[in-house]
């Protein structure tokens, strides 16, 4: 392609209207005179003020503008005139590197800001939610718990065996710490074959019939109840719900979903950190000792659970929401030290509890 024809491909847009002007650029000292084909100057740019907007690798054109008023555009194809411009102002040749460096700096600054913000939100949320849970009025906690309990009972078969219910509730009352005795305690046994038990805000405990079947003796049941009461006393269920309902809303925002979740199902999947579980274990041992009940039930139940795990159910089991079982069994054994006390239930009571889902 001849120099002449490439030169005429150069074009200029003044930023005021959409007219394409064929131009011939001419470098005069530090000024680029942008001339129309008749030789009249359409614009005069100070080369020090010029910046590169873009470069098209396919056709070799470069687009320029001026930094002080970045509205006009000058498109130059490869030509001796452009080579002269780039030689006089080598900075223009390195535009890509400049832009990348600038982009990196801006991006890095924003990223640091974002990471700092995310960290602040995460830790603020984690530690803040404990604080919120502790300062939620007990009445609100009860409202929340009552609603979730109602929703759970709507969808599940509650076991109503009278003697069993009386026995497990009396065991519960023996274990219930005084600090949370302001609200009535409910223990609902429901017919689900999964081995699971969990606490809801406002002194509600759910025990699945699968757990009662799995338990070898009433002490193991007492251990689980005491553990859940430990959670209740430390207000873990409330903290967990605030954390996980809130966090899930944030996460679903990130992934483009909506924030509504099934509260009742969520309650069964609440999982606590290992620290929270350890705290509840420690409390459980203390509660068992105070109630003068054998203290090794919790540890032996952990050991029994450790190896077998049945699937096939929409309900998660106790294992999946209680990590680190082996270590915790050891800790619980150590904490209990001795196995003082009496059995949690009499043989007759234990049989009644075991028969709760079949007895009238």
């Amino acid at each position, binding site marked *: 392609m001849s120099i002449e024809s490439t030169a005429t491909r150069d074009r200029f847009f003044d930023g005021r209207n959409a007219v394409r002007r064929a131009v011939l650029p001419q470098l005069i000292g530090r000024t680029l005179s942008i001339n129309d084909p008749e030789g009249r100057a359409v614009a005069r740019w100070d080369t020090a003020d010029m910046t590169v907007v873009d470069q098209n690798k*396919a056709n070799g054109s470069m687009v320029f503008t001026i930094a002080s008023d970045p509205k006009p555009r000058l498109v130059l194809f490869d030509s001796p005139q452009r080579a002269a411009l780039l030689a006089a102002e080598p900075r223009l040749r390195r535009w890509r590197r400049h832009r990348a460096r600038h982009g990196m700096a801006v991006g890095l600054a924003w990223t640091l800001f974002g990471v700092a913000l995310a960290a602040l939100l995460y830790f603020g949320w984690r530690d803040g939610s404990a604080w919120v849970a502790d300062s939620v009025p007990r009445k609100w906690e009860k409202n929340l718990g009552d609603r979730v309990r109602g929703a759970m009972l709507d969808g599940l078969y509650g076991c109503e065996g009278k003697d069993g219910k009386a026995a497990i509730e009396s065991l519960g009352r023996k274990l219930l710490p005084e600090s949370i005795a302001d609200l009535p305690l409910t223990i609902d046994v429901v017919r689900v074959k999964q081995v699971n038990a969990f606490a809801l805000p406002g002194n509600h405990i759910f025990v699945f019939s699968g757990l009662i079947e799995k338990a070898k003796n009433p002490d193991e049941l007492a251990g689980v109840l005491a553990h859940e009461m430990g959670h209740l006393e430390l207000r873990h269920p409330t903290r967990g719900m605030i954390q996980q309902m809130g966090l899930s809303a944030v996460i679903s925002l990130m992934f483009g979903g909506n924030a509504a979740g099934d509260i009742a199902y969520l309650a069964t999947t609440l999982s606590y950190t290992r620290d929270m579980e350890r705290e509840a274990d420690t409390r459980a041992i203390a509660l068992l000792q105070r109630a003068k009940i054998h203290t090794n039930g919790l540890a032996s139940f952990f050991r029994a659970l450790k190896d077998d795990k049945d699937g096939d159910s929409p309900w998660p089991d106790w294992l999946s929401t209680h990590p680190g079982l082996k270590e915790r069994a050891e800790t619980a054994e150590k904490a209990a030290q001795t196995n003082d006390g009496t059995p949690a239930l009499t043989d007759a009571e234990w049989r009644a509890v075991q028969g709760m889902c079949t007895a009238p």
Partner: protein
Amino acid sequence: MTVQSPATGQSAPSQQFAPREQFTYDGRLGELFGIFFTNLLFSIITLGFYRFWAKTRMRRYIWSRVSLNGDAFEYTGTGGELLIGFLIVVGFFIVATVLKTVLDLAAPPDSPIPALATVLFALIIVYLVFVARYAAQRYRLTRTLWRGIRGGMTGSAWAWGFKAMLLGVLTAITLGFAGPWAQMRLLDDRVNNSYFGDAKASMHSSSGPLYVAFLIGLAINLIGSFVIIALCGVIAGGSGFLSEFLTLAGQNTDTEEARRQMDELMKQHLGLLIGLGVFFYLSVIVLGIVAFAQYYVAMLREIANKLTMAELRFGTTVTIGRIIGLALVNILVYLLTFGLGLPVVIHRSLRFITNNIQVYGEIEGSQITHADLPRPRYGEGLLEAFDPGLF
């Protein structure tokens, strides 16, 4: 881009360039992959925060490689603008979530307030998505430059969002039959508020052709489904499964024995059942694609026929076969490469779009001047949160 070199001897500026106004795309796959993988790398390093700059970088490249009548477009948006828009939305969500949680905790049991709040929250989100769609178009138009002149958009995103909600309700009430009409009214509004410089885009579309396509689509789905079900029945009948099934189903199914027999029967014909299931779903999907594609093509043709911009009119060469071909290959490429083939998808789509838009008329550039239409300070916000992020 290949700008034709001037014919020998001619020097008048107006004759130096190709007279035919056409969209062209001269992007290179290699460059797209370069940008894509750098973007991916930085997005991973920055835990996703780079996405705003990644998107901007990709758009800059794409815009600059699409030209109309030999002059390339330019994208002038920045990553920071997108980030700020996003942060505003995140702030809104945090406030809304906290409010919602407090409501849930504070409401007495059996109170309807939490349920109402959930519905209200969902409605607000839907509304905001509509608002965001309008606002995003405004953002992109004001960040698009051609021949040194930028686009713009008038009108209120809030009002349009409200109208879109109302028409959405109308569409639902009429079981979808108001859909084509509502869709074109909303599109008309967006087009008639769009500007390039001071030149207004204009479109007064008719939903007639869309209703024809809508009914054809309905017929394809209904008749096709009937044929598929009949075919499944014939195949099941031929294998003897159907008669055995009906016999068993006719008996008392409440007994343990009947349930066992039924399980046994299912197990015997497991292969057939799976085959029929796969056949059924695949056929329904194919029907849906064909029905949707012919509707979509009718819509594109109507838009192309009715849209005018300055002195330009448009046409399209898109056909049902071509659009299905484009979509199917794109989906296959995307899935088989686990998303890493995205540049191929972008590349093919852009080539398809520019090849299938015809432009008639000539732009009288001197009549299009820069207009100071409002330029939003930050970008896309909510749409960013819901955007699949193709570009």
